[in-house]
């Protein structure tokens, strides 16, 4: 998904790209809470009947569910922030904080939307100059990539 934070008064302009995530942290917490009550409840019930070995399996599985949800939520938290200032285009990406940074001179930057040579592959949108290329929005769909490419072209002038 593409969030535009355009400024009407010129530069800097910021574009935030993020993968789709349909679950909020609150919903995830609610889901884990519900499953914890059910799984630990069932395990405890059987433990009270003498079958206590169910409980460790319930606990292990609950941890696995929490890990899986956490991984997916974490991946959904990935952001690519493209900032276009008067003379530069800056790309920052990472989860929670910028883990990678790239900068190009705006005047030299080139936007490249490449169609795949193999059927079934997705197009790639890249920003770069002087032989150095950085792919952006790999998680966007083709339509979003095309719109973004055109918009970036306009902004870069």
């Amino acid at each position: 998904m593409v969030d535009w934070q355009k400024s009407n008064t010129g530069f800097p302009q910021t574009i935030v790209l993020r993968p789709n995530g349909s679950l909020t942290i609150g919903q995830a917490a609610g889901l884990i809470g519900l499953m914890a009550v059910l799984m630990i409840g069932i395990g405890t019930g059987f433990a009270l009947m003498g079958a206590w070995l169910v409980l460790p399996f319930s606990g292990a599985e609950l941890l696995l569910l929490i890990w899986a949800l956490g991984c997916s939520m974490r991946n959904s938290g990935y952001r690519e922030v493209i900032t276009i200032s008067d003379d530069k285009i800056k790309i920052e990406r990472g989860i929670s904080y910028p883990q990678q940074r790239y900068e190009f001179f705006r005047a030299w930057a080139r936007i490249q939307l490449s169609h795949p040579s193999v059927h079934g592959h997705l197009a790639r949108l890249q920003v770069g100059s002087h032989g150095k290329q950085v792919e952006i929005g790999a998680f966007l769909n083709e339509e979003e990539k095309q719109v973004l490419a055109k918009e970036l072209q306009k902004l870069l002038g």
Partner: protein
Amino acid sequence: MATVADTHDTHHEHGPAKGWLRWVTTTNHKDIGTLYLTFAFVMFIVGGAMALIIRAELFEPGLQFVDPHFFNQMTTLHALIMVFGAVMPAFAGFANWMIPMMIGAPDMALPRLNNWSFWLLPFAAALLVATLFMEGGAAASGWTLYPPLVLQTGDALPFTIFTVHILGMSSILAAINIIVTIFNMRAPGMTMMRMPMFCWTWLVTAFLLILVMPVFAGAVTMLLTDKFFDTSFFNPAGGGDPVLYQHLFWFFGHPEVYIIILPAFGIISAVIPTFSRKKLFGHNSMVYATCVIAFLSFIVWAHHQFTVGMPVPAELYFMYATMLIAVPTGVKVFNWLATMWKGSMTFETPMLNALGFLVLFVLGGFTGIMMSQAPADFQYHDSYFIVAHFHYVLVGGAVFGIFAGLFYWLPKWTGVMYDEKLGKLHFWLSFISMNVLFMPQHFVGLAGMPRRIPDYAVQFTEFNALSSVGAFIFGVTQLLLGYIVWKAIRGEGEKVDGEVWEGAKDHGLEWNLASPPPYHHSFEGIEIKERD
């Protein structure tokens, strides 16, 4: 000056790997779906071969081909392989192929976990089959693995239990992946109530799986400790109780029945509207009915144990609770019928299989209601009537559901239409032989023939011979299924467009993609509509 260069890519790192390593290392949901379905078919043939050994032995009274101990090993492994190796992986294959495309996601939420959850299966299945060759043979206790009988298994016992753990682990990983995918990967606009029924039924199935699998894992681990570590969970001599195992097993085992059948409900809810050219009648009520069935499946387990000596109030409770399941199931059947009502129906192979499902599942459901009556169940218990009942549900329901889904989505997956004539031939042969196979078992069961025996009284001969003939026809017919699918995979057939079936685009996002869909699909310009 900046420009947008519209070029052709020369990078290849996102495509499928070449050769067999592609299938080992793949994290692509379509590849993994194909792996699951291929594995399921292989196990269907292996489990089917075991069924044919059983039916060959039962063709006439007396012992013909195998000794009673081996016969019991066959009944045990046939069931374990069909449930955990064939039917569940087949539905996991459908889930992998279809759920991301149905909810507008690029792939499953945890692709590497997905790869692992599949690749656990072949090793578990190989180990399970290998137990046949161990000292003392494979487990011969039936798929329920009841103590104390199962504790008499030879060297194979720990391996069987290890196998059950691995199979359970695979199911849990797949279930967690499906839950996370459906909750977190839905496309904007794809609200929960807009999701297709197939996704809903799989979501509910996934919850059932993760709630009951720890119980089964705990139960079989306690068998292991009773055998090797001197515990007495199920040993009365040490203060334990073998009936506790039955409660544990059926707390898992009854929801397991719904784990097997709910995804089939989802497939049928996709097929019937397409070939009736109408929207699914009562989508929301179908969702609620699925949830109610899932809830009820947790509170009825002891109807499998009516003869164990429960107090009468408990028998009454489990009897009435079990009868309640007929209500939400009836809602589903009513909605499928209402969907077809005044529809412009056509009868291509997927629809024939869906109708076959409907007829056979309802028959299996009716005998289920008979068995829910505790006093009557004292007659049916452990008889061939039970065998007939659950095969109507599991073969007539789950397997025909798989056939319907396979023929429905096969053109989407391969890009070519399967051989319709052979498809219809496969359906009719399967439908007729299935009834020849299992219908007579009702009668011998009611007349008193017990299950899990290699020999029987002579008055049951004719019905058993008929049943065995049906089994062999049904078995050979499944080789025809393999041939039909093989032809389609090789691209032999008429090329199809993305929609495949007339009006299919109204029934799901997947029909907006090309056939076959791109290795990495992406949805563009598609509006996700509110359901009517």
